[in-house]
Protein backbone atom coordinates (compact mmCIF):
# COMPACT_ATOMS: atom_id res chain seq x y z
CA UNK A 1 0.00 0.00 0.00
CA UNK A 2 1.27 3.44 -0.92
CA UNK A 3 0.46 6.03 1.73
CA UNK A 4 -0.02 9.37 -0.02
CA UNK A 5 -2.18 11.28 2.44
CA UNK A 6 -0.14 14.16 3.74
CA UNK A 7 -2.73 15.02 6.39
CA UNK A 8 -4.71 13.13 8.96
CA UNK A 9 -7.87 15.17 9.51
CA UNK A 10 -10.31 12.52 10.63
CA UNK A 11 -11.24 8.88 10.38
CA UNK A 12 -14.22 9.81 8.23
CA UNK A 13 -11.71 10.43 5.47
CA UNK A 14 -9.87 7.08 5.74
CA UNK A 15 -11.11 3.77 4.40
CA UNK A 16 -10.89 0.44 6.15
CA UNK A 17 -7.66 -0.56 4.46
CA UNK A 18 -5.97 2.69 5.46
CA UNK A 19 -7.10 2.43 9.07
CA UNK A 20 -5.82 -1.13 9.25
CA UNK A 21 -2.52 -0.06 7.74
CA UNK A 22 -2.03 2.61 10.41
CA UNK A 23 -2.88 0.08 13.13
CA UNK A 24 -0.42 -2.47 11.71
CA UNK A 25 2.29 0.13 11.50
CA UNK A 26 1.55 1.17 15.07
CA UNK A 27 1.92 -2.44 16.22
CA UNK A 28 5.48 -2.42 14.93
CA UNK A 29 6.23 0.86 16.64
CA UNK A 30 5.02 -0.35 20.00
CA UNK A 31 8.16 -2.44 20.42
CA UNK A 32 10.39 0.62 20.17
CA UNK A 33 9.04 1.97 23.47
CA UNK A 34 10.02 -1.26 25.24
CA UNK A 35 13.71 -0.86 24.39
CA UNK A 36 16.34 0.54 26.72
CA UNK A 37 17.10 3.16 24.14
CA UNK A 38 13.59 4.21 23.15
CA UNK A 39 14.56 6.00 20.01
CA UNK A 40 14.89 5.27 16.34
CA UNK A 41 16.29 7.64 13.74
CA UNK A 42 13.36 7.47 11.30
CA UNK A 43 12.42 11.17 11.53
CA UNK A 44 15.88 12.51 12.29
CA UNK A 45 16.17 16.06 11.01
CA UNK A 46 12.40 16.50 10.76
CA UNK A 47 10.60 19.18 12.72
CA UNK A 48 7.21 18.59 14.30
CA UNK A 49 5.28 21.63 15.51
CA UNK A 50 2.61 21.10 18.13
CA UNK A 51 0.21 23.96 17.48
CA UNK A 52 -2.30 23.95 20.32
CA UNK A 53 -5.11 26.50 20.44
CA UNK A 54 -6.74 24.73 23.33
CA UNK A 55 -5.14 23.61 26.56
CA UNK A 56 -4.21 19.96 26.44
CA UNK A 57 -1.53 18.14 28.33
CA UNK A 58 -1.95 14.51 27.55
CA UNK A 59 -2.41 14.66 23.81
CA UNK A 60 0.40 17.15 23.39
CA UNK A 61 2.78 15.17 25.57
CA UNK A 62 1.86 11.96 23.79
CA UNK A 63 2.62 13.52 20.40
CA UNK A 64 5.82 15.01 21.78
CA UNK A 65 7.03 11.69 23.12
CA UNK A 66 6.08 9.96 19.87
CA UNK A 67 7.95 12.51 17.77
CA UNK A 68 11.01 12.36 20.00
CA UNK A 69 11.12 8.58 19.90
CA UNK A 70 11.34 8.97 16.14
CA UNK A 71 14.21 11.48 16.61
CA UNK A 72 12.23 14.45 15.30
CA UNK A 73 12.70 17.90 16.77
CA UNK A 74 9.59 19.15 18.51
CA UNK A 75 8.43 22.72 18.96
CA UNK A 76 5.41 23.50 21.10
CA UNK A 77 3.26 26.52 20.35
CA UNK A 78 0.42 27.25 22.73
CA UNK A 79 -2.00 30.13 22.31
CA UNK A 80 -0.88 31.77 25.53
CA UNK A 81 2.64 32.33 24.27
CA UNK A 82 2.15 33.02 20.61
CA UNK A 83 1.07 35.75 18.29
CA UNK A 84 -2.29 34.08 17.92
CA UNK A 85 -3.78 36.44 20.45
CA UNK A 86 -2.57 39.39 18.47
CA UNK A 87 -5.06 38.45 15.81
CA UNK A 88 -2.93 36.57 13.34
CA UNK A 89 -5.13 34.37 11.16
CA UNK A 90 -4.80 30.63 11.24
CA UNK A 91 -3.61 30.55 7.65
CA UNK A 92 -0.91 33.14 8.36
CA UNK A 93 0.26 31.17 11.39
CA UNK A 94 0.39 28.01 9.30
CA UNK A 95 2.34 29.68 6.52
CA UNK A 96 4.81 31.07 9.04
CA UNK A 97 5.37 27.61 10.47
CA UNK A 98 5.86 26.32 6.96
CA UNK A 99 8.38 29.09 6.31
CA UNK A 100 10.33 27.83 9.31
CA UNK A 101 10.67 24.66 7.24
CA UNK A 102 8.79 22.54 9.71
CA UNK A 103 7.56 19.24 8.32
CA UNK A 104 4.49 18.38 10.33
CA UNK A 105 1.95 20.46 12.23
CA UNK A 106 0.09 18.67 14.98
CA UNK A 107 -2.92 20.82 15.67
CA UNK A 108 -5.49 21.14 18.41
CA UNK A 109 -8.20 23.73 17.91
CA UNK A 110 -11.45 24.64 19.60
CA UNK A 111 -13.16 25.28 16.23
CA UNK A 112 -14.36 22.30 14.21
CA UNK A 113 -12.73 22.18 10.80
CA UNK A 114 -9.74 24.38 11.63
CA UNK A 115 -7.22 21.64 10.71
CA UNK A 116 -9.04 21.16 7.40
CA UNK A 117 -8.69 24.87 6.67
CA UNK A 118 -5.01 24.81 7.58
CA UNK A 119 -4.28 21.66 5.57
CA UNK A 120 -5.81 23.28 2.48
CA UNK A 121 -3.50 26.24 2.82
CA UNK A 122 -0.10 24.70 3.60
CA UNK A 123 1.94 22.06 1.79
CA UNK A 124 3.30 20.45 4.93
CA UNK A 125 1.45 17.75 6.83
CA UNK A 126 -1.33 18.58 9.24
CA UNK A 127 -2.30 16.06 11.91
CA UNK A 128 -5.55 16.75 13.70
CA UNK A 129 -5.06 16.42 17.44
CA UNK A 130 -8.69 17.28 18.11
CA UNK A 131 -10.87 20.00 16.56
CA UNK A 132 -13.99 21.30 18.24
CA UNK A 133 -16.67 18.64 18.31
CA UNK A 134 -15.49 17.24 14.99
CA UNK A 135 -12.78 14.59 15.20
CA UNK A 136 -9.87 13.36 17.27
CA UNK A 137 -8.53 10.68 14.94
CA UNK A 138 -5.43 9.60 16.88
CA UNK A 139 -7.48 9.09 20.03
CA UNK A 140 -9.87 6.81 18.16
CA UNK A 141 -6.97 4.98 16.51
CA UNK A 142 -5.40 4.29 19.89
CA UNK A 143 -8.74 3.21 21.32
CA UNK A 144 -9.24 0.82 18.43
CA UNK A 145 -5.62 -0.36 18.68
CA UNK A 146 -6.12 -1.16 22.35
CA UNK A 147 -9.38 -2.97 21.66
CA UNK A 148 -7.77 -5.02 18.94
CA UNK A 149 -4.92 -5.91 21.25
CA UNK A 150 -7.33 -6.99 23.97
CA UNK A 151 -9.98 -8.74 21.92
CA UNK A 152 -8.15 -9.79 18.76
CA UNK A 153 -10.45 -8.30 16.16
CA UNK A 154 -12.82 -5.40 15.68
CA UNK A 155 -15.13 -7.10 13.19
CA UNK A 156 -18.38 -7.97 14.89
CA UNK A 157 -17.48 -6.43 18.25
CA UNK A 158 -20.17 -4.61 20.16
CA UNK A 159 -18.87 -1.32 21.44
CA UNK A 160 -20.85 1.19 23.47
CA UNK A 161 -19.80 4.80 23.71
CA UNK A 162 -21.26 6.43 26.80
CA UNK A 163 -21.34 10.13 27.59
CA UNK A 164 -21.78 13.50 25.95
CA UNK A 165 -21.87 12.39 22.31
CA UNK A 166 -23.04 15.79 21.03
CA UNK A 167 -19.91 17.63 22.02
CA UNK A 168 -17.42 14.80 21.63
CA UNK A 169 -14.84 14.57 18.87
CA UNK A 170 -13.65 11.32 20.45
CA UNK A 171 -17.08 9.81 19.93
CA UNK A 172 -17.26 10.87 16.30
CA UNK A 173 -13.82 9.52 15.40
CA UNK A 174 -14.49 6.28 17.24
CA UNK A 175 -17.80 5.84 15.44
CA UNK A 176 -16.23 6.33 12.00
CA UNK A 177 -13.27 4.06 12.77
CA UNK A 178 -15.15 1.28 14.52
CA UNK A 179 -17.99 1.06 12.01
CA UNK A 180 -15.54 0.99 9.11
CA UNK A 181 -13.80 -1.96 10.73
CA UNK A 182 -17.10 -3.79 11.16
CA UNK A 183 -17.94 -3.18 14.81
CA UNK A 184 -21.49 -2.68 16.01
CA UNK A 185 -21.49 0.64 17.79
CA UNK A 186 -24.11 2.03 20.11
CA UNK A 187 -24.09 5.42 21.75
CA UNK A 188 -25.64 6.10 25.11
CA UNK A 189 -26.39 9.47 26.68
CA UNK A 190 -29.21 11.60 27.98
CA UNK A 191 -31.38 12.78 25.06
CA UNK A 192 -29.92 16.28 25.16
CA UNK A 193 -26.43 14.96 24.51
CA UNK A 194 -27.20 12.87 21.43
CA UNK A 195 -26.63 14.84 18.21
CA UNK A 196 -29.12 14.97 15.35
CA UNK A 197 -29.27 12.09 12.90
CA UNK A 198 -26.38 10.27 14.59
CA UNK A 199 -27.97 6.97 13.46
CA UNK A 200 -26.90 7.86 9.93
CA UNK A 201 -23.32 7.32 11.06
CA UNK A 202 -24.28 3.68 11.46
CA UNK A 203 -24.88 3.50 15.21
CA UNK A 204 -27.78 2.64 17.46
CA UNK A 205 -28.91 5.01 20.17
CA UNK A 206 -29.97 4.27 23.72
CA UNK A 207 -30.60 6.38 26.78
CA UNK A 208 -30.33 3.46 29.17
CA UNK A 209 -26.83 2.70 30.36
CA UNK A 210 -27.68 -0.82 31.49
CA UNK A 211 -28.94 -1.57 28.02
CA UNK A 212 -25.74 -0.13 26.57
CA UNK A 213 -23.66 -2.41 28.81
CA UNK A 214 -25.73 -5.51 28.36
CA UNK A 215 -24.24 -7.07 25.26
CA UNK A 216 -21.15 -4.91 24.95
CA UNK A 217 -17.69 -6.35 24.43
CA UNK A 218 -16.23 -2.98 25.22
CA UNK A 219 -17.36 0.35 26.53
CA UNK A 220 -15.74 3.71 25.88
CA UNK A 221 -16.61 6.12 28.67
CA UNK A 222 -16.38 9.78 27.70
CA UNK A 223 -15.32 12.55 29.98
CA UNK A 224 -18.27 14.62 31.19
CA UNK A 225 -17.72 18.33 31.31
CA UNK A 226 -19.98 20.39 33.48
CA UNK A 227 -19.64 24.14 33.59
CA UNK A 228 -17.14 24.92 36.30
CA UNK A 229 -18.83 28.07 37.54
CA UNK A 230 -22.28 26.64 37.37
CA UNK A 231 -23.69 26.32 40.88
CA UNK A 232 -25.89 23.49 39.75
CA UNK A 233 -22.89 21.52 38.58
CA UNK A 234 -22.54 19.39 41.67
CA UNK A 235 -26.09 18.04 41.87
CA UNK A 236 -25.95 17.54 38.11
CA UNK A 237 -22.77 15.53 38.48
CA UNK A 238 -24.33 13.34 41.15
CA UNK A 239 -27.37 12.80 39.02
CA UNK A 240 -25.27 11.91 36.02
CA UNK A 241 -23.25 9.44 38.05
CA UNK A 242 -26.43 7.86 39.33
CA UNK A 243 -27.93 7.46 35.89
CA UNK A 244 -24.93 6.99 33.60
CA UNK A 245 -21.86 6.41 35.76
CA UNK A 246 -20.00 3.17 35.13
CA UNK A 247 -19.81 1.30 38.41
CA UNK A 248 -18.92 -2.22 39.49
CA UNK A 249 -22.57 -2.90 40.29
CA UNK A 250 -23.49 -2.07 36.71
CA UNK A 251 -20.67 -4.19 35.32
CA UNK A 252 -21.90 -7.27 37.19
CA UNK A 253 -24.64 -7.53 34.60
CA UNK A 254 -22.22 -6.99 31.71
CA UNK A 255 -20.06 -9.49 29.87
CA UNK A 256 -17.43 -11.07 32.11
CA UNK A 257 -14.46 -9.80 30.16
CA UNK A 258 -15.85 -6.43 29.09
CA UNK A 259 -13.13 -3.90 28.25
CA UNK A 260 -13.53 -0.44 29.80
CA UNK A 261 -11.83 2.46 28.02
CA UNK A 262 -11.66 6.17 28.77
CA UNK A 263 -9.83 8.81 26.76
CA UNK A 264 -8.88 10.68 29.93
CA UNK A 265 -8.52 12.67 31.96
CA UNK A 266 -11.04 10.79 34.06
CA UNK A 267 -13.52 12.38 36.46
CA UNK A 268 -13.69 9.82 39.23
CA UNK A 269 -17.19 9.57 40.60
CA UNK A 270 -18.80 11.39 37.71
CA UNK A 271 -18.70 9.20 34.62
CA UNK A 272 -16.78 6.31 36.13
CA UNK A 273 -16.24 5.01 39.64
CA UNK A 274 -12.72 4.74 41.01
CA UNK A 275 -13.17 1.01 41.46
CA UNK A 276 -13.87 0.55 37.75
CA UNK A 277 -11.19 2.99 36.62
CA UNK A 278 -8.60 1.06 38.60
CA UNK A 279 -10.23 -2.34 38.20
CA UNK A 280 -9.51 -5.38 36.09
CA UNK A 281 -11.64 -4.30 33.14
CA UNK A 282 -9.93 -0.97 32.78
CA UNK A 283 -7.34 -0.50 30.02
CA UNK A 284 -7.03 3.23 30.60
CA UNK A 285 -3.27 3.24 31.14
CA UNK A 286 -2.65 0.82 28.29
CA UNK A 287 -4.47 3.32 26.09
CA UNK A 288 -1.91 5.91 27.10
CA UNK A 289 0.97 3.60 26.23
CA UNK A 290 -0.61 2.63 22.92
CA UNK A 291 -1.17 6.29 22.13
CA UNK A 292 2.57 6.68 21.68
CA UNK A 293 2.80 3.84 19.17
CA UNK A 294 -0.22 5.08 17.22
CA UNK A 295 1.10 8.63 17.07
CA UNK A 296 4.54 7.41 16.04
CA UNK A 297 2.91 5.53 13.17
CA UNK A 298 0.84 8.54 12.16
CA UNK A 299 3.82 10.88 12.22
CA UNK A 300 5.98 8.41 10.33
CA UNK A 301 3.38 7.88 7.58
CA UNK A 302 2.60 11.58 7.26
CA UNK A 303 6.27 12.48 6.96
CA UNK A 304 6.75 10.00 4.19
CA UNK A 305 3.59 10.90 2.32
CA UNK A 306 4.74 14.48 2.38
CA UNK A 307 8.15 13.54 0.99
CA UNK A 308 6.39 11.75 -1.81
CA UNK A 309 4.27 14.75 -2.59
CA UNK A 310 7.42 16.88 -2.62
CA UNK A 311 9.36 14.61 -4.91
CA UNK A 312 6.49 14.50 -7.36
CA UNK A 313 6.38 18.23 -7.74
Amino acid sequence: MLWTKKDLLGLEYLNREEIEFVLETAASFKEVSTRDIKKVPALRGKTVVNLFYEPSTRTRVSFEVAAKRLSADVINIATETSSVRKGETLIDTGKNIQALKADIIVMRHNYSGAPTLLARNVDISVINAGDGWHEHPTQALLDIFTLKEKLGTIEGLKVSIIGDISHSRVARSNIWGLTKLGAKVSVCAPKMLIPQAIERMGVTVTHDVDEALQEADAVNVLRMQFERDNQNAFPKQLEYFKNFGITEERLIKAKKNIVVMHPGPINRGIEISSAVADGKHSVILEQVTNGIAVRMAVLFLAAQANEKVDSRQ
Partner: protein
Amino acid sequence: MREKTKILDAQTISRTLIRIAHEVLEHNRITDNLAIVGIRSRGAHLAKRLADCVKKIDGKEVPVGILDITLYRDDLTLLNYQPVVHKTEINFDITDKNIILVDDVLYTGRTIRCALSELIDFGRPKTIQLAVLVDRGHRELPIRADYVGKNIPTACNETVEVRLAESDGCDEVVIIEKDNS
Protein backbone atom coordinates in the same frame (compact mmCIF):
# COMPACT_ATOMS: atom_id res chain seq x y z
CA MET B 1 13.96 -8.34 -16.81
CA ARG B 2 15.18 -11.86 -17.38
CA GLU B 3 16.61 -14.56 -15.26
CA LYS B 4 20.22 -15.09 -16.30
CA THR B 5 21.65 -17.89 -14.20
CA LYS B 6 20.89 -19.94 -11.18
CA ILE B 7 23.94 -19.82 -8.99
CA LEU B 8 22.82 -21.79 -5.95
CA ASP B 9 20.23 -24.53 -5.61
CA ALA B 10 18.53 -25.88 -2.52
CA GLN B 11 21.19 -28.45 -1.79
CA THR B 12 24.04 -25.99 -2.15
CA ILE B 13 22.30 -23.46 0.08
CA SER B 14 21.85 -26.09 2.77
CA ARG B 15 25.52 -27.20 2.49
CA THR B 16 26.65 -23.59 2.57
CA LEU B 17 24.76 -22.89 5.80
CA ILE B 18 26.28 -25.97 7.44
CA ARG B 19 29.72 -24.77 6.40
CA ILE B 20 29.08 -21.30 7.80
CA ALA B 21 27.82 -22.88 11.06
CA HIS B 22 31.12 -24.77 11.34
CA GLU B 23 33.10 -21.60 10.68
CA VAL B 24 31.09 -19.72 13.28
CA LEU B 25 31.74 -22.40 15.89
CA GLU B 26 35.39 -22.55 15.00
CA HIS B 27 35.67 -18.82 15.45
CA ASN B 28 33.60 -18.67 18.63
CA ARG B 29 34.83 -21.54 20.76
CA ILE B 30 32.45 -20.76 23.60
CA THR B 31 28.84 -20.84 22.42
CA ASP B 32 27.35 -19.71 25.74
CA ASN B 33 27.24 -16.08 24.76
CA LEU B 34 26.56 -16.59 21.06
CA ALA B 35 23.40 -15.12 19.49
CA ILE B 36 22.15 -14.88 15.94
CA VAL B 37 20.22 -11.90 14.60
CA GLY B 38 18.72 -11.91 11.13
CA ILE B 39 17.69 -8.88 9.09
CA ARG B 40 14.09 -8.94 7.88
CA SER B 41 12.91 -10.68 5.93
CA ARG B 42 15.19 -13.30 4.29
CA GLY B 43 18.06 -12.70 6.68
CA ALA B 44 15.68 -13.67 9.45
CA HIS B 45 14.86 -16.98 7.77
CA LEU B 46 18.55 -17.67 7.23
CA ALA B 47 19.28 -16.80 10.87
CA LYS B 48 16.83 -19.44 12.07
CA ARG B 49 18.33 -22.03 9.73
CA LEU B 50 21.83 -21.16 10.87
CA ALA B 51 20.77 -21.58 14.50
CA ASP B 52 19.37 -25.02 13.62
CA CYS B 53 22.70 -25.98 12.02
CA VAL B 54 24.60 -24.82 15.10
CA LYS B 55 22.32 -26.85 17.30
CA LYS B 56 22.86 -29.96 15.17
CA ILE B 57 26.61 -29.60 15.39
CA ASP B 58 27.01 -28.36 18.92
CA GLY B 59 23.75 -29.41 20.61
CA LYS B 60 23.27 -25.93 22.02
CA GLU B 61 20.23 -23.72 21.56
CA VAL B 62 21.37 -20.31 20.34
CA PRO B 63 18.98 -17.34 20.78
CA VAL B 64 17.70 -15.87 17.52
CA GLY B 65 16.48 -12.33 16.99
CA ILE B 66 14.93 -10.43 14.11
CA LEU B 67 15.88 -6.92 13.15
CA ASP B 68 13.61 -4.63 11.12
CA ILE B 69 15.80 -1.84 9.88
CA THR B 70 13.10 0.30 8.21
CA LEU B 71 13.25 3.01 10.85
CA TYR B 72 17.03 3.25 10.52
CA ARG B 73 17.20 3.53 6.75
CA ASP B 74 18.93 6.57 5.32
CA ASP B 75 16.97 6.37 2.08
CA LEU B 76 13.40 6.60 3.37
CA THR B 77 12.78 9.75 1.42
CA LEU B 78 14.12 8.26 -1.81
CA LEU B 79 11.79 5.32 -1.88
CA ASN B 80 8.92 5.39 -4.28
CA TYR B 81 7.03 2.70 -2.42
CA GLN B 82 5.66 2.59 1.08
CA PRO B 83 8.09 0.72 3.33
CA VAL B 84 6.05 -1.40 5.71
CA VAL B 85 7.34 -1.16 9.22
CA HIS B 86 7.56 -4.53 10.96
CA LYS B 87 8.54 -5.39 14.46
CA THR B 88 12.05 -5.88 15.64
CA GLU B 89 12.08 -8.96 17.85
CA ILE B 90 15.12 -9.33 20.04
CA ASN B 91 13.92 -10.98 23.21
CA PHE B 92 17.29 -11.31 24.89
CA ASP B 93 19.91 -8.95 26.20
CA ILE B 94 22.59 -8.53 23.57
CA THR B 95 25.12 -6.94 25.92
CA ASP B 96 28.41 -8.88 26.01
CA LYS B 97 27.12 -11.34 23.42
CA ASN B 98 28.88 -12.38 20.27
CA ILE B 99 26.27 -11.53 17.68
CA ILE B 100 26.18 -13.17 14.30
CA LEU B 101 24.31 -10.71 12.09
CA VAL B 102 22.76 -12.52 9.12
CA ASP B 103 21.55 -11.20 5.78
CA ASP B 104 20.94 -12.76 2.42
CA VAL B 105 22.90 -10.50 0.06
CA LEU B 106 25.73 -8.09 0.87
CA TYR B 107 25.75 -5.29 -1.67
CA THR B 108 26.37 -1.58 -0.91
CA GLY B 109 26.70 -2.21 2.82
CA ARG B 110 24.04 0.37 3.74
CA THR B 111 21.59 -2.18 5.12
CA ILE B 112 24.33 -3.53 7.37
CA ARG B 113 25.16 0.01 8.49
CA CYS B 114 21.51 0.50 9.54
CA ALA B 115 21.48 -2.87 11.26
CA LEU B 116 24.64 -2.03 13.21
CA SER B 117 23.14 1.28 14.37
CA GLU B 118 19.97 -0.41 15.48
CA LEU B 119 21.73 -3.31 17.19
CA ILE B 120 23.89 -0.95 19.18
CA ASP B 121 20.75 0.83 20.38
CA PHE B 122 19.78 -2.46 21.99
CA GLY B 123 22.94 -2.80 24.06
CA ARG B 124 26.68 -3.29 23.85
CA PRO B 125 27.54 -6.62 22.27
CA LYS B 126 31.05 -8.02 22.71
CA THR B 127 31.42 -8.52 18.97
CA ILE B 128 29.22 -8.30 15.91
CA GLN B 129 30.14 -10.66 13.10
CA LEU B 130 28.49 -10.63 9.71
CA ALA B 131 27.33 -13.69 7.82
CA VAL B 132 25.82 -13.45 4.32
CA LEU B 133 24.70 -16.02 1.84
CA VAL B 134 25.94 -14.02 -1.15
CA ASP B 135 28.44 -11.18 -1.48
CA ARG B 136 27.89 -9.48 -4.82
CA GLY B 137 30.41 -6.65 -4.44
CA HIS B 138 29.82 -2.91 -5.19
CA ARG B 139 30.39 -1.77 -1.60
CA GLU B 140 29.71 1.89 -0.79
CA LEU B 141 30.79 1.70 2.86
CA PRO B 142 33.79 0.12 4.58
CA ILE B 143 31.97 -3.06 5.53
CA ARG B 144 32.98 -6.69 4.94
CA ALA B 145 31.47 -10.03 5.84
CA ASP B 146 33.12 -12.49 8.24
CA TYR B 147 31.32 -15.47 6.74
CA VAL B 148 30.40 -15.60 3.07
CA GLY B 149 28.39 -18.36 1.43
CA LYS B 150 29.45 -17.43 -2.08
CA ASN B 151 31.18 -14.51 -3.70
CA ILE B 152 29.42 -13.60 -6.93
CA PRO B 153 30.89 -10.79 -9.03
CA THR B 154 27.96 -8.97 -10.65
CA ALA B 155 27.33 -6.14 -13.09
CA CYS B 156 25.36 -3.06 -12.08
CA ASN B 157 22.37 -3.93 -14.25
CA GLU B 158 22.06 -7.26 -12.49
CA THR B 159 20.39 -8.12 -9.23
CA VAL B 160 20.85 -11.14 -7.06
CA GLU B 161 17.64 -12.66 -5.87
CA VAL B 162 17.64 -15.08 -2.94
CA ARG B 163 14.52 -17.20 -2.77
CA LEU B 164 13.76 -19.18 0.34
CA ALA B 165 11.11 -21.78 1.02
CA GLU B 166 9.74 -19.78 3.96
CA SER B 167 8.78 -16.82 1.80
CA ASP B 168 9.15 -17.85 -1.84
CA GLY B 169 8.25 -21.54 -1.89
CA CYS B 170 11.68 -22.84 -2.95
CA ASP B 171 15.36 -22.47 -2.15
CA GLU B 172 17.51 -20.91 -4.87
CA VAL B 173 19.69 -17.95 -5.72
CA VAL B 174 19.48 -16.44 -9.20
CA ILE B 175 20.98 -13.54 -11.07
CA ILE B 176 18.47 -11.35 -12.82
CA GLU B 177 19.41 -9.01 -15.60
CA LYS B 178 17.50 -5.73 -15.77
CA ASP B 179 16.59 -4.28 -19.14
CA ASN B 180 18.67 -1.30 -20.04
CA SER B 181 15.77 1.05 -20.37
